[in-house]
């Protein structure tokens, strides 16, 4: 019998290794798997590479993980925010490496990883500073049908931590509103995907027409207490 339901966050996160690349879902206040991030802090893996759209807000969640000093590198599109002080401090004191990626390239590089694509040519970023490698050399480019493109490579994760609304023991997931964001692509891009959910559904109870992430992409589903989603760490009307 397949049973991907983990009894606790700690059980779900067991085996995350030092040096792992961890994909963390969420955009703004929506879809951030805060309970799983707290579990990762507890779990203690070090020398991590984290992939998220942002680089933490306030002092909680991803910011708290950064504060432990266990994140070597972050790959994101928008680190600088009014309350990204933890990241800002680490970046300015050169204690964290930043790979800045245009948001659509970030999503597509994750999608490519999950879809078995070796690399892809994208128009986004062509002719800009973000069409350079970390050492400053230009990324490969090509003109296709008269339009210039930049070659971008997939981002593979060892683990993905995502937040969904409901799941079942096969790992099928449904999301809520704009909390879906990076969840479905990150689920496909990692060797192991761990999803937190507010409800566990009986097998067959999720409408198959509405399942967004089929269980094949999910290794563990862990139920967390329902909390009123709120603007944790975000200034109002920032």
């Amino acid at each position, binding site marked *: 019998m397949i049973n991907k339901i983990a009894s606790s966050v700690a059980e779900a996160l067991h085996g995350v290794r030092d040096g792992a690349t961890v994909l963390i879902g969420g*955009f*703004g*206040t*929506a*879809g951030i798997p805060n309970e799983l991030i707290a579990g990762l802090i507890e779990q203690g893996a070090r020398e991590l590479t984290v992939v998220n759209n942002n680089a933490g807000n306030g002092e909680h969640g991803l910011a708290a993980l950064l504060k432990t000093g266990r994140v070597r590198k972050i790959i994101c*599109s*928008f*680190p*600088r*925010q009014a309350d*990204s002080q933890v*990241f*800002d401090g680490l*970046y*300015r004191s050169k204690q964290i490496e*930043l790979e*800045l*990626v*245009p*948001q*659509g*390239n970030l*999503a*597509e590089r*994750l*999608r490519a990883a999950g879809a078995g694509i070796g690399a892809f040519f*994208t*128009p*986004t*970023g*062509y*002719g*800009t*500073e*973000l069409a350079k490698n970390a050492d400053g050399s230009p990324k490969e480019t090509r003109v296709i049908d008269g339009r210039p493109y930049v070659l971008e490579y997939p981002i593979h994760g060892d683990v993905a931590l995502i937040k969904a609304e409901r799941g079942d023991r096969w790992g099928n997931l449904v*999301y*809520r*509103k*704009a*909390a*879906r*964001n*990076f*969840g*479905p*692509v990150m689920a496909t891009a990692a060797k192991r995907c761990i999803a937190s959910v507010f409800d566990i559904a009986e097998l067959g109870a999720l409408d198959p027409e509405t399942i*967004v992430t089929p269980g094949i992409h999910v290794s563990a589903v862990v139920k967390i207490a329902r909390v009123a*989603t*709120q*603007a944790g760490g*975000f200034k109002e*009307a*920032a």
Partner: protein
Amino acid sequence: MSYTRRTKDALAKRVAQDIHDGAYVNLGIGQPTLVANHLPPGIEVILHSENGILGMGPAPASGQEDYDLINAGKQPVSLLPGGAFFHHADSFAMMRGGHLDICVLGAFQVSATGDLANWSTGEPGSIPAVGGAMDLAIGAKQTWVMMDLLTKQGTSKVVPQCSYPLTGIGCVKRIYSDLATLECTPQGLRLIDTVEGLSLDELQRLVGLPIAAPATPA
């Protein structure tokens, strides 16, 4: 002759007046979001938000905020009947794939041929952040910029070549500013309109670049 700058709302209204019925539109963070308040009555415009929303509606009433339903600026919004959610790779495929009719962005600088600089001033020591700016700039069928024509120091933000780091090359089709509306073409700038009392000669003096007369009389 004297002339008056368009207020931020008047500028938003000027942009909104060029958005057609049925358009799929992405409004960038900041000033462009004002455009939503000025869409002409009687037309349907579908707003896209990069974080996976089509059919985005206005901010909910106080107390009705749902933090699973936010816009790209992370502010609570609503969903109109007919709206839809989708994941990030689909959302950016919608942009990059040329499915959006119009995106409206702010800018630090725009070149006469439509190069855009709007994500970084390249200041040493500053923390870079790009978000969806580069994807939006090159993705929509038409990218429009909404900005003041001049900096606080009085220099033109429309320039021969951007000195700030580029967001995209040759991607801006129109500049809506507080003083004039301009078209960017591979040959340079062309006038669409100016505020009342501002002549083309005076506008060219302010911008410091040649501006062709309107294609059809304004």
